[in-house]
């Protein structure tokens, strides 16, 4: 078949989702493949809808080479409005940030995305009228404040019949039942109870409908300060020690009020540090961890390292890569967070104390630390459904303000902070240090981080359960029939077909040996607890016993109560933490037991898959972790086919246990960017920095070049 390039513009129509409306479009827009001065690219149409910005090139209709890993909702050339980070216009070679009203229209548009893609569009050949419409349309819809109800979420939910049952393994924690199951699973039900006090949100709109508190806490005290000053249960350790969180009182000017609050708190502490409760340790996260502002600043600097305009920029900054990376402080923040989580784990595991995390709203760093501690200590949280349940429990229902923290509505930049991304970055460190301990892969985490910006799922688009519930009913839209039915991000079939979903599962996951069938109970969500933690058997040395006694004594003397406090790192017994860390690392890893991250400087790494996936200069042809993974997947496939053969031999019914394994066999040498950035690769050329290659030039036609870089792709073997 002969392909003839049609000069006449083909009518390419954007693929619209239910409820998606085309707002404006511009034709003959030129999209650069990669802004490297070569000006290669494709012509096409740039459209903006109420869901996404999309570039439709002339070939987009024919999908000859379907990538193996494809998102069904957000295509390669789609940018959801929430995914736009910043938009720059280029005027006479000068870059200018585009925010609100525009007086002049740029000749080039650079869109930086929150998933770290960079798009370069040239508008020089577009009609002026269209340029005006598309640029102001894109800027307006992606960069200006928005009403919650204008989120695409609502148009989609009302237009798309949501037939998905939603009954997957993930616990949503929307019902009392779920909380009770979780209490039972962690054996926390002796001392803690799920309460219905907040039904109708009469305690607080910030708290979930149901939550868990110590049994001795009365309804009155919960109601007294809208739930502030009340320890809320997160998780119970196998030895009974629990992880709790509490939101504090705002700073009071009035002396008598603050006196009353102090008395209230003292009362609470007294109640919950009496037996049967364990010793209580308080940890004020606002003083022991970086502030949200610090985190935001660090991440803003960090992501800049990866939002690369072009090759020239890349190689220019590459010279200073290591010092630039260091100066962002992002990895250091990850390290501090991990260290804090280890501290908490030590208190729970070794010292058998309850830990109470304190933060003003208890919905930011509290979520990070409590989630991390659970990932480290509870092997259930390292399965896919367990991790998803954890995110539901601590973040979605727990009341993390996704809407504000992601600044989805462009309301206030002051509220923006990548708290959830920080958690994913920390979990990634664990995943790459102990791959067999996790049922999911780093690709899963990357895809999850991308889903933060896809407004068809309700998961990351509300600040609290209350906000979601009130907006769900659709009361303001009387014409709508019934409440909205939102999708949850955990239904991965919405974004990925089964073949692509296979990339989210870790083929090397060291699955827990299933208990004997005779012993297995049939109860729903009966999660087996893992009790074999490496340290529980370890006999404490005399030295550590001495330390413990001493510190306990000290605490009792100072506070006169059974309450300990993390004060400053200087005051806490540094040896016990170090000893805990050292002793754990000196033993072989039990992938189903306690997992402690290594936090020495060189062990904290850049999450290469997420941050480097669109940067061709950083790719390895046939290299990277995927090179090993491909081999393993081949092996898995072989094992499975043998298994099938064996089953046939024994004429046994093949149970549905066989996971689908992604087939990579046919692809010869994969790039390290796999499974992302597939199509871009074809035009990629490795460029080598000038410094090394300058002298290559010769009177012979060594390289014909018009830029500073040597193009090796054209005539590469």
């Amino acid at each position: 078949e002969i392909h003839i390039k049609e000069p006449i513009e083909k009518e390419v129509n954007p693929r619209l989702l239910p409820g998606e409306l085309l707002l404006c479009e511009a034709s003959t827009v030129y999209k650069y493949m990669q802004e490297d001065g070569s000006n290669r690219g494709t012509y096409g149409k740039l459209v903006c809808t109420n869901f996404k910005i999309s570039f439709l090139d002339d070939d987009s209709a024919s999908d000859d080479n379907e990538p193996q890993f494809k998102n069904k909702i957000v295509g390669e050339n789609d940018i959801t409005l929430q995914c736009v980070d910043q938009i720059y216009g280029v005027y006479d070679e000068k870059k200018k940030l585009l925010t609100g009203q525009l007086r002049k229209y740029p000749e080039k548009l650079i869109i930086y995305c929150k998933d770290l893609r960079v798009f370069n569009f040239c508008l020089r050949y577009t009609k002026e009228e269209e340029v005006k419409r598309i640029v102001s349309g894109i800027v307006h819809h992606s960069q200006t404040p928005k009403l919650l109800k204008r989120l695409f979420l609502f148009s989609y939910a009302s237009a798309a019949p949501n037939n998905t049952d939603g009954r997957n393994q993930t616990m949503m924690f929307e019902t009392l039942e779920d909380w009770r199951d979780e209490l039972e699973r962690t054996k926390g039900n002796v001392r803690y109870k799920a309460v219905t006090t907040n039904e109708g949100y009469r305690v607080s709109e910030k708290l979930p409908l149901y939550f868990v508190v110590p049994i001795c806490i009365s309804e009155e005290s919960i109601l007294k300060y809208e739930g502030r000053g009340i320890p809320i249960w997160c998780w119970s350790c196998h030895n009974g020690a629990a992880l709790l969180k509490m939101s504090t009182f705002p700073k009071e000017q009035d002396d008598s009020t603050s006196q009353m609050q102090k008395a209230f708190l003292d009362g609470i502490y007294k109640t919950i540090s009496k037996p049967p409760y364990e010793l209580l340790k308080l940890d004020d996260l606002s003083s022991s961890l970086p502030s949200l502002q610090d985190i935001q600043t660090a991440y803003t600097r960090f992501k800049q390292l990866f939002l690369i305009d072009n090759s020239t920029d890349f190689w220019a900054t590459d010279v200073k890569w290591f010092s630039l990376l260091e100066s962002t402080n992002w990895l250091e923040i990850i390290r501090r967070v991990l260290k804090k989580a280890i501290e908490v784990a030590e208190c729970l595991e070794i010292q058998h104390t309850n830990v109470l995390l304190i933060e003003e709203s208890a919905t930011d760093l509290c979520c990070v630390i409590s989630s991390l501690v659970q990932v480290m200590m509870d092997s259930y949280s390292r399965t896919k459904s367990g991790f998803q349940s954890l995110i539901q429990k601590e973040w979605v229902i727990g009341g993390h303000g996704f809407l504000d923290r992601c600044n989805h509505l462009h309301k206030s930049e002051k509220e923006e902070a990548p708290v959830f991304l920080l958690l994913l970055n920390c979990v990634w460190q664990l995943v790459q240090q102990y791959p067999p301990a996790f049922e999911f892969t780093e690709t899963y985490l990357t895809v999850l981080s991308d889903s933060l910006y896809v407004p068809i799922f309700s998961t990351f688009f509300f600040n609290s359960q209350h906000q979601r519930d009130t907006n769900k009913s659709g009361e303001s839209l009387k014409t709508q029939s019934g409440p909205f039915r939102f999708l949850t991000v955990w239904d991965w079939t919405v974004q990925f077909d089964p073949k692509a979903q296979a990339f989210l599962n870790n083929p090397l996951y060291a699955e827990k040996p299933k208990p004997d069938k005779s012993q297995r109970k049939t109860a729903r969500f009966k999660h087996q607890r893992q009790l074999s933690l490496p340290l529980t058997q370890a006999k404490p040395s005399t030295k550590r016993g001495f330390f413990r006694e001493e510190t306990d004594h000290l605490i009792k003397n100072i506070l006169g109560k059974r309450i300990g406090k993390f004060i400053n790192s200087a005051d806490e017994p540094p040896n016990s933490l170090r000893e805990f860390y050292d002793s754990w690392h000196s033993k072989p890893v039990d992938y189903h037991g306690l997992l402690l991250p290594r936090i020495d400087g060189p062990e904290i790494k850049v999450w290469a898959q997420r941050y480097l996936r669109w940067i061709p200069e950083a790719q390895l042809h046939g290299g990277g972790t995927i090179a090993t993974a491909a081999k393993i997947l081949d092996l898995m496939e072989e094992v499975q086919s043998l298994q099938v053969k064996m089953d046939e031999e024994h004429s046994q019914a093949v149970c549905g246990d066989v996971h689908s394994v992604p087939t990579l066999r046919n692809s010869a040498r994969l790039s390290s960017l796999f499974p992302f950035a597939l199509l871009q690769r074809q035009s990629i050329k490795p460029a080598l920095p000038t410094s090394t290659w300058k002298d290559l030039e010769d009177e012979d036609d060594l390289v014909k070049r018009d830029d500073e870089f040597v193009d090796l792709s054209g005539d590469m073997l």
Partner: protein
Amino acid sequence: LTPASSFSKPKVLTATSTLKFIPEELAVFCRDFRLLRFYFPENGLAPQAFRVANAIAQAREAAAWLGDAAEGHDGCSCPGEAPPEEEEEEEDEEEGLPAMLLFESLWDWEKELQRLGAEGWRVSAVNERFDMAPSLPKYLWVPSGLLDHDLKRTFAHFQERRVPRLCWHHPGGGHLLRAASFHPASEPGSEDVRWVPGDLGVEAEGGLERGRPPHHFAPSEPSDRDLNCLLASLVQLLGDPHARSLPGFQSLVQREWVAAGHPFPHRLGLLRRDTPREEAPVFLLFLDCTWQLLWQFPADFGFTEAFLLALHDSSFSPYFSTFRFSCQRQRGHSSVSQLPSQTYRPVGGWQHPGGLRRDPHTCTFPPVWAWGRRYTRQQQEQFQNPVGPPAPAEPLAPGTVSPSLWGGAGLVLTLAKGSLCPHPLPWWSRPSLRPPHRGSPSESQGMQGGLLGTCNPPPGLLLPCTAGPCIRLWHRCYLRGLPLEQ
């Protein structure tokens, strides 16, 4: 290396330093990044502590001196000799492992030349008695058209008499050569050196695969004994799948470093006498570069990080001939003159599985490749990469890419001061001695056109990423000493 501390005040110990206090603790910082701490309890051991500390410091110094003055002397006490017979058998059992080459015999050089399929080159034995160039190996790969008689006259023109010679032949037709820089006293126009340009033919790593007429690439540094070793072997690691197999890698090190005369004792700082300026971890730099490649392309190597670590640590071990000498001559010489009693002893335990004919005059220290000496079978199994290429890489089939396709006397590029320079050689003006090439320009054009747009490098070639995010710290090597990293 051996500081002692007294009441938290550490002092570095050397042989000549006098201890003015009784050490409380002895801390030994090892080259393999271990830190050993010995604590001397006070109950009566104090005088011994003093003596032990001093003895260690002096022994270390003495060992180094000995090693230099009479490399081989302490071979008598070398614990590696006279190994039990079973060990030998074990080695022999490893049939799956194709033989590596030591490049001590003519046969090795012939065999490797054959594997490379480098037509137009031959093995010359002109340096068999090391009288042409003391630091060069016995055998050299030189152009077939060049007679030994003519070759002999070129030696004088190069520093340390290290003439240009072939390192590697790319199946695409390019050649990798190495040589020392021109001797300042020689006359560039002299007839003696005229052979060089015409037959030189090599390309650099990137250039190798570009489908242009082959560029002849000759790394050049004044001495040809340090960075040339590094560069020549790295280029081969990138371009030759065989070099990435375990035996291939060992052969590579043997040829480009050991036989080529890298002054290991000086560079590794095994000799005390040397000024510290002679010390430079060139070989360790090579191991680190190899690790970067291994880390970037885990599925392309037949060996593992464990192997590199073993090699790293073995480079400081006194038991192996591999790193004890500066060149082949010294290696052979020391055993002949200093250890006459051992000269005709049957070569100890280590016999290469391939049944290599080993010169009876070579040193009786085992080479480092006798892994059975220091590593158990289980440990050695960990040297094999499970996800590496399924079988030891096939030798590059000569003619897969016809050398004649691009033929032609391409450029001669020389690496100078970190950059590739065209025709820096003073004798470049001379026309090519090669026969007219068969490949027509249109043919090569067509080839280039066909390759345009493909982005994957050809099979076998690795293109490492040199961008900042892709260069990592080899933490399993450097951080081994930290208690937490174990």
